[in-house]
Structure formats: C-alpha cells, structure tokens
C-alpha cells in the first residue's frame, strides 16, 4: 500500500511548502515570523524548539486548522487543503493525518471504532474500513484490543491507538504534535523506536513537533530548529545517521555530536551568544 521509491525522493516536488508564512494573533503576539520550509516525500522532519517558538502553531497551519496571517502554504502544489477536493487528477490519494499531544480518543467508543473513525467519516465501505482498522491496530501491536475501551488502556497504549487511527488513513503526510510528551521516558523511547521503524517500513512522510533534542536526533532525517519571541526558524539541519537506528545509536558519538550541535544552536538563539563550534 505504500510505494517505496526512496532513492528519487530528493528530487520530487515537495508535499508541503510554506512560503514566508507568518502568524500574528489578534492581541498582537507574533507566533511565527516569515517561515520558509518545504517537506519532501519520505522525509522525517522534526520541528525542535523551546516553548513559545511557534512549532505547534506551525503544525496547526500545516494541518489547515489555522490560516496564516501572511504568506501562503501549498499542499501537493495546491493552495487548498488535502481532502477539501476529490482525488487528484493523477489519481493519487492525498491524505493528511494528525496525532495530537493527547491521545484524543472518544471515551464512549471502543478502540476499533476510534481507529475506524476517519474512515467512517470518509464514507469508506465497512468491509474495507474494518480491514484497514485491523491492519493499523496490528502495526502498533494492539491487534487484540479492538473491543477494549480507551479508559482501560495505559497512556502509552492510548497513544498507540491514536497513531493507529492516523495510520488507518494511510496518510501521505503525518503530522505529530509532541505525541509522546506526556509519557514516561521508557515508554517514550519505545514508542520512538516503533515510530522510526514504521516510518522506514511504510515510507511515511512525517512532521514531528518536539522539545526534546534527543528525540529529534533519534527520529529525524532533518531537524528544523526554532527560536522563540518571535517564533522563527533558525537552522535546518540534516541528520545523516544510519537508516536503522537501534539503542546503540542513542549512545554513539555520532548521535552525541548531533545533539551537541543542536543544543549549541538553541543556546545561541536564546542568549544571542555564539558558542564554540562543537564539531
């Protein structure tokens, strides 16, 4: 279901393109200042920055939940949201899914109904939707939990359901807003590893918001570093780590070097002092 022409991706048109996008709230707060960014197919891009740097706002703009105050966004080269129109002329599906900070499940519906929700809303035939739902639950390791209600699950399992719900739509673009921020470190590391494996296996395109340098380096093929007041992009760093990232990668010198570099960039943006080059 996911084609994998990985090698040609760098030359493909961006899935998402933000051109000089700004967001100013009615009270005058500048949440984002002239952000220019493109997301290409197959990338895992993290938006990394402190609280108030506008990374969640940027993700909301990407999801079409808010409109920019200035500049414009292009999804698959078009100025309208994916899903706002029928299938593209070339027949390609163009769907976008989002995973929120909280699991955001419907407490009155069981896991199966929660995962099937986006498909039901899209009026997908029941048989096909059930098949997709079962596959998505199996992907996150919850195949046996379809009939369970969210309150009976742990926080980590609820988050898995939330990810399954996004994967069930077979999204061409997956937006994740600090999805594991509320979980303990062990659960978070395990889910990070699972997510990275899913990304590699399924050829997903992910934009991932986080304030953890380690998480960003572990997961990403690219890290967009942001600073606060006003929210802006200060660096765009490729993470050329190994394709398969295991626990050993977390303690490798290469990993540490990336972390130190991002840390220095963030410190510089927040104090205005240029640190010694760690490289």
């Amino acid at each position, binding site marked *: 279901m996911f084609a994998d022409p990985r090698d040609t991706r760098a030359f493909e048109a961006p899935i998402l393109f933000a051109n000089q996008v700004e967001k100013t709230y009615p009270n005058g707060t500048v949440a984002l200042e002239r952000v220019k960014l493109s997301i290409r197919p197959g990338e895992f891009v993290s938006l990394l920055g402190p609280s108030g740097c506008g990374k969640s706002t940027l993700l909301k703009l990407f999801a*079409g*939940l808010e409109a920019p105050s200035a500049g414009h966004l292009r999804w698959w080269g078009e100025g309208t949201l994916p*899903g706002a129109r029928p299938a593209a002329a070339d027949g390609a599906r163009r769907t976008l899914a989002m995973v929120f900070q909280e699991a*955001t499940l*419907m407490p009155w519906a069981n896991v199966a109904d929660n995962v099937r929700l986006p498909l039901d*809303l*899209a009026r997908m035939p029941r048989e096909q939707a059930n098949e997709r739902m079962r596959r998505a639950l199996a992907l996150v390791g919850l195949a046996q939990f379809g009939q369970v*209600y969210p*309150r009976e699950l742990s926080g980590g399992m609820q988050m898995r359901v939330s990810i399954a719900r996004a994967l069930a739509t077979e999204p061409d673009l997956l937006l994740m807003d600090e999805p594991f921020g509320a979980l303990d470190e062990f659960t978070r590391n395990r889910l990070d590893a699972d997510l990275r494996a899913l990304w590699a296996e399924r050829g997903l395109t992910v934009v991932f918001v986080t304030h953890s340098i380690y998480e960003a380096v572990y997961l990403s093929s690219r890290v967009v570093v942001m600073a606060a007041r006003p929210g802006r992009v200060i660096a765009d760093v490729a993470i050329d780590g190994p394709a398969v990232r295991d626990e050993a990668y977390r303690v490798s010198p290469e990993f540490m070097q990336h972390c130190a570099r991002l840390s220095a960039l963030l410190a510089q943006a927040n104090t205005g002092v240029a640190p010694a080059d760690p490289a």
Partner: protein
Amino acid sequence: MASPLLSRPAVQRIAAPLAVGALMLLAWQAVCIWLDVPPYLVPTPSAIARTLVEDWALLSGSLWVTLRITMLAFALAVVLGTAAAFVFVQSRLIEASLFPYAILLQVTPVVAIAPLIIIWVKEPTLALVICATMVAIFPIISNTVLGLRSVNPGLLNLFRINRATRWDTLRRLRIPSALPYFFGGLRISCGLALIGAVVAEFVAGTGGTGAGLAYQILQAGFALNIPRLFAALVLITVTGVLLFGAMVVLSRLALSHWHESELA
C-alpha cells in the same frame, strides 16, 4: 474492626439507609405513644400506614392524576428542552438572544404564574402540565447546552481535519459528549416535574374527579384528617424517590461502559 458484612457495598448502599429509616420510624412511633401525641397533631407511622391501606381507593386515584401530570410534564420538558438546547448551540447569537428568556422561565415562581395559566388554559390537565413543564424544563436546557458545548477541542480538531460534516460532528461527537450532562439534567428535572405538578395542583385546587394528591392534602388539612394528609405526603415522596431512582438506572444503562460518573 468492621465486620465483612458491613463493608459490602450492597449492604452500605441499600441496607444501611433502610436500617436508619426503620430506626427513625420506630423512634417516631415510640415518642408518639409515650407522650400521647394526639393523631390530629402528629399521627404515628402505623396510623399513616393504616390510612394508606384504608383510603387506598381514594389515594391511588389521586396518585394516578398527579403521576400523569408529572410524567406528561417531564416528557414535554425533555422533548422541548432538548430541542431548545439544539437550537441554542447552533450559534452564539441565537443562544445570547434566547437564553435570558429561558432564565426568566426558571426564576419566575410557578406559584405566581400558575393562576394566570389556569385562567388562560381551559383544559385543567393541560394547564397543570404547562405549569409543571415550566418548572422542569430549565435543567434540561442548561445541562444539554453545556454538554453540547463541552466537546474535547482536540476531538473537534480531529473531526475538522477529517472533513466531518456538521451532521457527523453532531451525531458522532457532540451528542455522545453531551449525554452525561443530559442525564444529570434528567435527574434534577424529574423531581422538579413532580414539585411543579403538586404546586400547580395546590394553586388550581381542582376538585371532583380530577383531584390529585395536592388536593387530597388540602382537603385532609381542612378536615383535620392528618393521617390522610401524611399518607398523601408519603405517596408524593415515594413517587419522587422512585422517579429519581429510575433516572439513575437509565443513566447507568446508557453510560456505564465509558463515563467516569457511572464506573463502579
């Protein structure tokens, strides 16, 4: 140390209050007998029970009249209140324009407007039902509006991202979110419907065949038939408790599989 019997939830929830009630009735009976209280001041529980049995033909007819008005008013309050709530949440402007009048309905004492309604509406049962509905409708409106608005903003965003129609959002998100609030409204409203019915009957004071429990209380008061007055009072109270209990059961049936308030 508590015996295992007393720590059982069924015992604590049902047997314990029943035991307290029985003790209080016993004490009441004992005080009445010891101090030789005349029955036209405070009748003994046994005298009230005897009156209930002896006057059952009369009282049960009145109970049915009051119960009918209560149920009609409650049903009307649920239907109209829910409908009003759905209208209110369609837009802030509609809510802002109409909600003050719903409050007006709530704060106006039913005793004060019942005479007017009884004059305007010729059919006595209908007049009483209207009065009781006016008392019972507000908790349904306000709770359902609150429920329909209390939607998890994250879920609302999820529905927006997935291009949910207004109808889908209502059916799959707003209505399920509102249910716990709605059932809370039902619990308050069923008791108010009964109170509204009794108060309206007092004001209307209708005699003859259509006489409800309030009429029996008035008549028994005039005739100093205090045991019958108490018997009618007992019937009203028991009706109110049973109505409330029915709403609790209904709420549990509807919500027990997911909502915190109904988890064991």
